[in-house]
C-alpha cells in the first residue's frame, strides 16, 4: 500500500485525471472531495461490500431450509401471535 501524508487543502492525483482533495480533517473523520471523469464510478467501500454480499446471497442453491428455520426458532423466535 502506498502511504502519503496530506494536510487539509492539499490533494493528490490518480492516473492523471482523478483528483482527491482533502477538504477537512476532524478528530476521527476526513472530508474528501473527488474530481473524476463521469465514466469513473466512485462509491464508498461499504457499498462495494454490500454489493458483493448481495451477490453471494442471491439465488441460494435449492435445499432444505427446515434446519435453518428450526435453529432460528430455537433461538427464541416465536410465530406472530404466539406466546414466547
Amino acid at each position: 500500500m502506498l502511504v502519503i501524508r496530506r494536510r487539509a487543502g492539499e490533494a493528490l492525483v490518480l492516473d492523471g485525471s482523478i483528483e482527491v482533495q482533502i477538504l477537512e480533517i476532524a478528530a476521527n473523520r476526513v472530508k474528501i472531495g473527488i474530481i473524476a471523469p463521469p465514466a469513473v464510478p466512485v462509491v464508498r467501500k461499504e457499498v462495494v461490500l454490500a454489493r458483493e454480499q448481495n451477490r453471494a446471497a442471491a439465488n441460494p442453491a435449492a435445499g432444505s431450509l427446515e434446519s435453518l428455520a428450526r435453529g432460528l426458532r430455537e433461538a427464541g423466535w416465536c410465530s406472530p401471535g404466539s406466546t414466547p
Partner: protein
Amino acid sequence: MPDSPPPGELFHFPSGLPGFEQHHDFILSRRAGLDPLVFLDSRHGQGPGFIAVPVEVLDPHYLLRLDEAAAAELLLSPGAYTAAGSRFLAFALLTCIPNEPPTANLFAPVVLNPASGTGAQVLQLDSGYPVVHPVREGASCS
C-alpha cells in the same frame, strides 16, 4: 414493527439493491413451516431471490438508523428505531451456501414500508453491525 408481512406482497425499491440496481420490484412471501424465514424474490423470473430473517430475530436490540435519503425513499421519517412499535419491517439477508454455516447481513438490512409499498436496503454506516454475522450455531442451510 407489524406482526407479520402479508404473503406475496409487492414492494417497489426505487434504487434497487446494491449489485442488482436494475431490479426494482420484489415480492415478499413466507412459506409454511419455515418461519421466521421470509423470501424476497424479484418480480421478474430471471431476477435475484433472497432468503431473509427479521433483524430482531438475530438481535432483539437491533437499532436501525434511517438517514434522510433512505427515509425519503421509504416515505418514513429519518431517525433511529428499534423493532418495537415501528411502522416498517427490517430484514437481514441470509447468505446460505450448502455445507457452510449461514450468515446474515446486519450491516445492510432490507427495510420495507407496508403502508407505502416501498423498500430499500439501508446501509448502517458507522454502526459496527457486520456484513457477515454468524447465524445461530446449529442452524444450517441443508
